[in-house]
């Protein structure tokens, strides 16, 4: 684009990343803990045992703190869309509007209504209605996440829409294609399941702390039993949905996959790097591994379910590979440029009333629209279209490595809990406490893979970040970046402080002990 202010693009991206990563500190715990609470309450309603009510109420108070601090942090993202990313916001049209409207209605009616019953309804509504409310809060929270993830999935794989060159907006032509695109399904399932894993680790970690402090042993063991069972199932399913996500990335975003694996040169029987360290060479277009542990054919299997399948590397994707039907970025840039020029000519012809010319240009625009976004790199080095390889690689491997560890962690915790030996395993209990920050690290790494790995695209192949930003003064973005940083840090400190107070206080009434004294 003309006079691109790269500092504006970079600051706008940094601000969005800061807000999204901060927002994502709270969301996964809400998604997962809501289900764990509903399961705990189901035990209470089924057994009538007041200890289960006590357990449920305690975790509900933790849920409440997290929910309250996290609430509305996502709205800031919407502010940023309108101010910093106005070209993008206009271009996406209904695609964001419709899912976000549905999300708003669902969040309001399901979460807001039933969350009040969940917190205020004890002894005021029937046990069964209260339980139903807790389940509806869990389902409502997760369905809210569905819509924003569908919108995000569309950005990664734009389907079910048509661009209207008269209004410059995308119009939804097939709602079901948008909702059920393979990227959307995998993204939704993978993301919410990761929330279940985080919440399970959170419950196990805090419960382990109580056991280490020799407090609330029964409460802690019961909490661990529920969380470890839920967490083990969720973590296994997480691996399954991760596999689905990898296959979708291989099909629709091959450059992201190549960056995630640091794969510069494609091959059949492509190896999966289990552990690797990329060398640090400044201004190099390729970074080799200093140390690596490859699994032969692993990447081919992960990407296509076939150990011998061909996986293109960054080199083939940039320079093309006619043998495998891959066209070069240079060709895509030319196609994209043709489409952009045709759109400009169409608009001009329409203004002058030259209908024939307008129709001719419209045809050219549509024929080349598939690579529209590449056109913004006309005259640039195609290597600018490669996402940050190191960041994508390390984030992906941290996420997968921790995900694998979590499966083993849950299995170990569940084993010792079933054997009734968990209270004696001090090392395991300490490990459980220290696994909490790892769960958050895995969450943030997951988002880095998804969002950094698709760079430079805001909308895959159609709109790069350089075309999406508003023409505003970058100093405004810099000011609000630091303002956010200060506000978010203060809020995070407040949350941690309130949560720590609640954790130290522990569950309130000791119903079983009181009743046994009587």
């Amino acid at each position, binding site marked *: 684009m003309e006079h691109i202010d790269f500092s504006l693009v970079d600051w706008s991206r940094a601000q969005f990343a800061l807000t999204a990563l901060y927002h994502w500190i709270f969301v996964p715990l809400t998604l997962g803990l809501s289900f764990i609470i509903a399961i705990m309450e189901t035990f209470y309603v089924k057994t009538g045992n007041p200890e289960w009510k006590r357990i449920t109420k305690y975790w509900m108070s933790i849920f409440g703190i997290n929910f309250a601090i996290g609430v509305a942090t996502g709205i800031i993202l919407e502010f940023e869309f309108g101010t910093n990313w106005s070209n993008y916001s*206009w271009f996406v049209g209904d695609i964001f509007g419709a899912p976000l409207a549905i999300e708003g209605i669902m969040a309001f009616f399901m979460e807001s209504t039933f969350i009040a019953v969940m917190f205020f309804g004890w002894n005021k509504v029937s046990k069964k209605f209260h339980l139903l409310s807790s389940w509806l809060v869990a389902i409502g929270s997760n369905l809210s996440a569905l819509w924003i993830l569908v919108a995000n999935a569309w950005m990664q794989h734009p389907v079910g829409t048509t661009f209207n060159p008269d209004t410059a907006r995308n119009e939804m032509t097939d709602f079901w294609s948008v909702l059920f695109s393979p990227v959307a399904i995998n993204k939704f399932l993978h993301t919410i399941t990761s929330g279940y894993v985080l919440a399970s680790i959170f419950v196990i970690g805090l419960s382990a702390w109580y056991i280490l402090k020799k407090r609330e042993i029964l409460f802690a063991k019961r909490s661990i039993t529920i969380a470890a069972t839920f967490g083990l199932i969720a973590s296994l399913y997480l691996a399954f949905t991760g596999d689905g996500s990898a296959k979708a990335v291989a099909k629709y975003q091959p450059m992201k996959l190549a960056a995630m694996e640091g794969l510069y040169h494609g091959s059949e029987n492509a190896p999966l790097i289990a552990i690797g360290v990329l060398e640090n060479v400044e201004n190099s277009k390729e970074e080799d591994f200093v140390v690596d542990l490859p699994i032969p054919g692993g990447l081919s299997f992960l990407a296509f379910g076939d150990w011998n399948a061909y996986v293109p590397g960054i080199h083939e994707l940039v320079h093309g590979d006619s043998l495998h039907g891959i066209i070069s970025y240079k060709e895509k840039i030319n196609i994209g440029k043709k489409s952009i020029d045709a759109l400009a000519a169409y608009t001009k012809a329409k203004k002058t009333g030259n209908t024939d010319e307008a129709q001719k240009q419209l045809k050219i625009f549509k024929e080349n629209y598939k690579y529209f976004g590449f056109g913004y790199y006309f005259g640039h080095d195609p290597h600018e279209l490669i996402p940050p390889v190191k960041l994508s690689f390390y984030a992906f491997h941290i996420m997968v490595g921790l995900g694998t560890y979590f499966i083993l962690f849950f299995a170990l915790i569940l084993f010792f809990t079933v054997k009734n030996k968990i209270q004696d395993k001090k090392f395991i209990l300490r490990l459980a406490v220290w696994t909490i920050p790892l769960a958050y690290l895995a969450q943030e790494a997951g988002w880095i893979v998804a969002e950094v790995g698709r760079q430079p695209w805001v909308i895959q192949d159609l709109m790069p970040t350089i075309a999406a930003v508003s023409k*505003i003064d970058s100093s405004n973005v810099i000011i609000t970046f630091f303002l956010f940083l200060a506000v978010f840090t203060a809020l995070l400190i407040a949350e941690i402080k309130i949560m720590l107070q*609640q954790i130290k206080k522990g569950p309130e009434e000791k119903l079983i002990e009181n009743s046994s004294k009587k």
Partner: protein
Amino acid sequence: MIRTVFNFYKEGFLSMKVGKKLWLIIGIKLFIMFAILKLFFFQDFLSSKFDNNKDKGNYVIEQLTKTK
């Protein structure tokens, strides 16, 4: 019915313990977000420049087709 719902919420809010502190934080957060950030820093870029969708669309097309 309305009175019952009102009392339900009223009693719920009054009996909150940790909640009061949380509501204070939520209040401060919403004030910063809507009374400061939205008002002074995050005006909708296109709406602040154009009155109607046609002009907004024309402006975006113009921006998207400037590649030289």
